[in-house]
């Protein structure tokens, strides 16, 4: 069947990407400053050890093997779900990820929801009220949104809502209210980008022949926009939202740190600051995998909205 063939072809293209991500994640660990053997034998920097002890530990960790063998060993462990242990806390990284992923997912999901509602919503309003004062105001606002540094807005929001007016908690996610400020902060730039994208793609579609035809058939403007232009504009918007979801996992790191949210992003930043490279490797792996999964989802979405692909006409 054409459709299965198409999906399999797309999946095959993503495998090299996944391999590339694992190589870079592995390289981050190999290139990291500091000697893991030394860190194990001499954690506080004051103990001495013999060359023999050093070689024993090195052999146990497989560090005496060539880099390629080390990479394959490491990959094998990752595939079995073993991300190793943090150098410092000695806690299993997999357990930490398991505990932290849901928190980041809630945060990312909420912020996606905000981006979709406000971004797509104001984009449609701008397109239907083209060149009106409302359009000018909203497009100005969306440009402002994508020009504001998230970490700065986070500080201001904490100050106003949590410290001055005491409406929302300053940090942590002990209750749902704790997610509100970070989700808003995280959604701001994406909302700006999404609104601009929605506006321009709908206006693009409105200039095409089929909408001109719909217009001349006497359909009212709202129907032309929603039934025809918007459906076609969904493809670029969907692509943006998909990559945004993948990107938000990386972008959430700073925001999670500022709001003291125990997600995977703040875990990664803490790991970077303490040179805990197994954790950084796991994080890069995870984000790369999420990116690949998001891409698969985008492809499936394409197929459902694009009749050309659905009917097997445009399999490149």
């Amino acid at each position: 069947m054409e459709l299965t063939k198409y999906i399999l072809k797309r999946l095959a293209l993503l495998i090299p990407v996944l391999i590339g991500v694992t190589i870079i994640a592995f390289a981050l660990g190999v290139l990291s400053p500091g000697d893991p053997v030394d860190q194990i034998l001499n954690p506080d920097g004051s103990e001495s050890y013999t060359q023999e002890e050093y070689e024993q530990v090195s052999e146990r960790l497989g560090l005496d093997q060539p880099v390629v063998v080390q990479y394959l060993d490491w990959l094998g462990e990752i595939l079995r779900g073993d991300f190793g242990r943090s150098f410092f806390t000695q806690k299993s990284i997999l357990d930490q990820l398991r505990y932290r992923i849901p928190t980041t997912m809630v945060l990312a999901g909420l912020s996606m929801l905000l981006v979709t509602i406000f971004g797509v919503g104001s984009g449609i309003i701008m397109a239907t009220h083209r060149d009106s004062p409302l359009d000018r105001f909203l497009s100005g606002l969306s440009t402002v949104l994508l020009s504001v540094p998230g970490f700065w807005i986070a500080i201001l929001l904490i100050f106003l809502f949590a410290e001055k007016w005491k409406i929302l908690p300053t940090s942590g996610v002990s209750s749902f209210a704790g997610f509100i400020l970070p989700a808003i902060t995280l959604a701001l730039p994406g909302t700006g980008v999404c609104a601009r994208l929605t506006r321009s793609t709908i206006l693009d579609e409105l200039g095409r022949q089929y909408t001109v035809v719909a217009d001349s058939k006497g359909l009212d403007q709202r129907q032309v926009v929603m039934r025809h232009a918007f459906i076609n504009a969904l493809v670029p918007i969907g692509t943006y939202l998909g990559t945004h979801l993948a990107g938000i996992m990386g972008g959430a790191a700073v925001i999670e740190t500022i709001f003291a949210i125990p997600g995977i992003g703040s875990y990664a930043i803490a790991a970077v600051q303490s040179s805990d490279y197994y954790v950084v490797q796991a994080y890069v792996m995870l984000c790369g995998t999420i990116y690949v999964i998001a891409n698969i989802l985008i492809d499936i979405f394409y197929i459902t909205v694009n009749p050309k692909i659905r009917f097997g006409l445009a399999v490149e």
Partner: protein
Amino acid sequence: MKHMRLRSKIALGILAAILLAGIFAPLLAPYDPYASDLGNVLAQPSAQHWLGTDSIGRDLFSRILYGGRQSILLALVATALSMGIGFLIGLVAGYFGGAVDGVITTISNVFQGLPGLTLMIAIAALMGPGVTSMIVAIVTNSWVGFSRIVRGEVMKIKQESYIDGLKSVGASKARILFMHISPNLLGTTCILFATRVAAVVIAVAALSYLGLGLQPPTPDWGVMISEARAYFRRVPMMVVAPGLCIVALSLSVNILADEMRDRLDVRKDSLKDM
């Protein structure tokens, strides 16, 4: 030639003011941005100190004037490098197609799949904080955006009949690529360059805020926000002023990028003529 929109004129004015303030900071600043005055810390704005002073009595206004110098220069250099690398890679991938394009596209996908800011943070931590590590981090992160756009445009342009004409008169590949295809890409890459610079200024500030970018006591907007965290409640200006400068800079660059985009958008223009 269309008239510039009012908002673009204002943006141009603000951008010029920020750049001039940075260039002439040594002449304009009333105080030495590094000089502390422990007898006058966390002062409110006054005639002597227009924006007040920070936690060790340095003049905020002077530090604000100096505050864009390093991060803007850094963003320009790093983005220009990304553009150069991305441009060449995109040109090669788009023009030669086939296996070359396949390999390059796969590599681009890998870089696109990496977690942006966190990768920058990892690189900054790997190489130790500093200017070189930030440039490496930014280039690692930014070249893909340029190569994608250039690749797409080149694939369109190489179908044009004048390229066939050039081939038939025996023009070399290098000549076609650099003399005849590249000039067509100038507009698009300039727009992308501007929007990337705006994003990179924000990323540099975020890195400096986390202590992984520019280091104290450098008078830099990101560093200033980072240093001000503990005193924010008493002197909000310490966080607000440098933040507003970052917003003003990236906003004016984004508005000007929009202006360029509108001028270059052929389809939109032809629509208006209809």
